[in-house]
């Protein structure tokens, strides 16, 4: 009942349809050397696991699989850790069912 690491989010995102706006990510992480607690929380709370640690211990975001819930905005925007916009019209996740 507790094999959480076995959940492969990438497999879940594979069901979804996206139109990626290449080169224009709608979320940006502010440059940092040591991530804030808010940024570190995003590694786990993001339902699409868009946030990862790089080998320098900094938090990076890859928005291709983003399902646009806004959770990271609620946590990370007040501290200035991230900048959050909606994707340009027509881009991003395209829900078939919703």
């Amino acid at each position, binding site marked *: 009942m507790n094999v959480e690491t076995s959940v492969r989010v990438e497999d879940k995102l594979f069901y979804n349809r996206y139109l990626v706006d290449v080169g224009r990510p709608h979320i940006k992480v502010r440059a940092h050397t040591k991530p804030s607690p808010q940024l570190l929380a995003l590694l786990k709370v993001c339902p699409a696991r868009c946030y990862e640690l790089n080998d320098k211990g900094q938090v990076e975001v890859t928005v291709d699989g983003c399902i646009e819930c806004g959770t990271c905005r609620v946590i990370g925007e007040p501290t200035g850790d991230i900048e959050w916009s909606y994707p340009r*019209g027509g881009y*991003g996740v395209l*829900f078939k*069912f919703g």
Partner: protein
Amino acid sequence: MIEEKFDAIVVGAGMSGNAAALAMAQRGMKVLQLERGEYAGSKNVQGAILYADMLEKLIPDFRDDAPLERHLVEQRFWIMDDRSHLGVHYRSEDFNEERPNRYTIIRAQFDKWFSSKVREAGATVLCETTVTELARDAHGKVIGVRTDRRDGEIHADVVVLAEGVNGLLGTRARLRERPKPDKVALAVKEMHFLPRETIEAHFNLKGDEGVVVEAVGTISRGMTGMGFIYANKECISIGIGCIVADFQRTGETPYGLLDRFKRHPSVAPLIEGSEVKEYSAHLIPEGGYKAIPQLYGDGWVVVGDAAQLNNAIHREGSNLAMTSGRIAAEAIVQVKSRSHPMTAANLSVYKKMLDDSFVIKDLKKHKDMPMLMHTNSQNFFLTYPQLVSRAMQNYVRVDGTPKAEKEKVTLKSFVNARSWTGLFGDALRLARAWR
């Protein structure tokens, strides 16, 4: 740049935006609706349940052609621990009626249909257009919007902000605050497909009958949250949501929770053999009455999730969205019909009308519930479900222990876990918040 000026611009094509655009267009207003998705519905996520009464007020004969899934004949409420559930089920033949009261729907399909009605009523609907900013005059009055599609501004007498829970425009323009992590829940959901007959067999349904399961307990691991299972025609919506601040505090992952919920022995057989076709996530406003922001101003009103109009206790949202959209439209039409300007003072009639409706009355009734649930999440979502499960097992298992002794054990387990003061306090607090 669009040279023409509109009576109203509606930002967003979800439940509240479609309701507002439709109600205004039906009354002859010149309406422009802007939606960032490929089509209305392509960005919208909900369980989802449709409440007929609120839609009938806009489209009385919606049953003729709306894409409805199943009408609900049964509500199941489960209190779960890791291996069990205690259920309260209400099923009635009365719900098999001529004009059913609640339906399951699939939002992307439903919203597309809803949007077609908005167009038929005469509104201009522009999709694939993200509104980036509100346009304001020198006095700060909202006079239109800027989008990512066209240069310049599109003007209107009034802008209806139906931009959803995560509405950026309103917060950027400082009309309201960004939702706080303890006032919104993050829910994740999967769509599980199965043959119709299989779903009907799994849930004891026939024809278009439907059922909703809502579950609390150890599935949320001490966080304030809830799991849900909705039976659609050929698929099952299954998901779980918890308060964002709780995720932040515990480091639990939303997909980890969903996976545990799906593997629970009470849940797994319901979705057995299914094929998953979509994974989605969405924020849900949970702050209730106390989180409602300023609802109107010079040249603007806000409706639906963007205004935090969600009844977390009764899990109603789309009906509040639809109703607030309709009432905002009626208020705007009233101001316009008197040839008055769309000032804050004149648009305040929207709030007055909303205050008189079930929307604000219901939220006001439960104004203390969100905080109570959140500050006592360990007790209400972990300790009590475990106690209740043990009590039930103790009650039903026949093992030669005298009943009086069994009851003593159960009572002792409650008192040990919460103490007499705690038990009475919890009951009192709950009763107070509920009344």
